């Protein structure tokens, strides 16, 4: 069966520090991968998605970036965090277009 792992679960980082959130999927190959951000009490904002290794589509211009160094690994990064980067970050995967997405448990990031 397929599983998705996302870590860490919580993270407190100072303003201006770098960020690296990692997501890995097991039990499937060539998945679509997604990063979403969710502010407290609000909806999900699509940040990046990837249909293959090295292929990243960015939805929102900001100081975040994503990379897919391996087929089932998706990394969300920042060189310098802003206070506004605080939120709940969710990684997800799907088998392709027009299929359901499966979510990780999320990382709650607080920038102080």
């Amino acid at each position, binding site marked *: 069966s397929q599983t998705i792992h*996302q870590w860490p679960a919580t993270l407190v980082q100072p303003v201006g520090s770098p960020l690296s959130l990692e997501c890995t999927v097991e039990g499937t190959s060539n998945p*679509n991968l*997604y990063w*979403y951000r*969710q*502010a407290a*009490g*609000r*909806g*999900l*904002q*699509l940040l990046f*998605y990837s*249909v293959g290794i090295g292929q990243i*589509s960015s*939805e929102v211009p900001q100081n975040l970036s994503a990379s897919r160094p391996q087929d089932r690994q998706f990394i969300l990064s920042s060189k310098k965090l802003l206070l506004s980067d605080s939120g709940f970050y*969710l990684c*997800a995967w*799907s088998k*392709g*277009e*027009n*299929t*359901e*997405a*499966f*979510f*990780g*448990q*999320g990382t*709650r990031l607080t920038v102080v």
Partner: protein
Amino acid sequence: GESVGLHLPTLSVQEGDNSIINCAYSNSASDYFIWYKQESGKGPQFIIDIRSNMDKRQGQRVTVLLNKTVKHLSLQIAATQPGDSAVYFCAENNNNNDMRFGAGTRLTVKP
């Protein structure tokens, strides 16, 4: 489209009643829709999906209705239980590889 800047609308129902959660989507080209349930501090979980060639689909205690004419999607939960309390999101996909979420609705079930 995405409504990530809005506070979540809320729906409060009595235990045992039926719940109806609504969602409006903006892209008439969208042809696949999903309802997700998100409990506090967790990632969203799949509930039910529907493709644009259907207008109704039923699952266990849940029914999704799709009205393409007015671009409206609804989720009906029968005999709502306290465990149904969560935030519910609709999502749309239009043959692209991205998936867009609606603003979400917070469902509270009163005992």
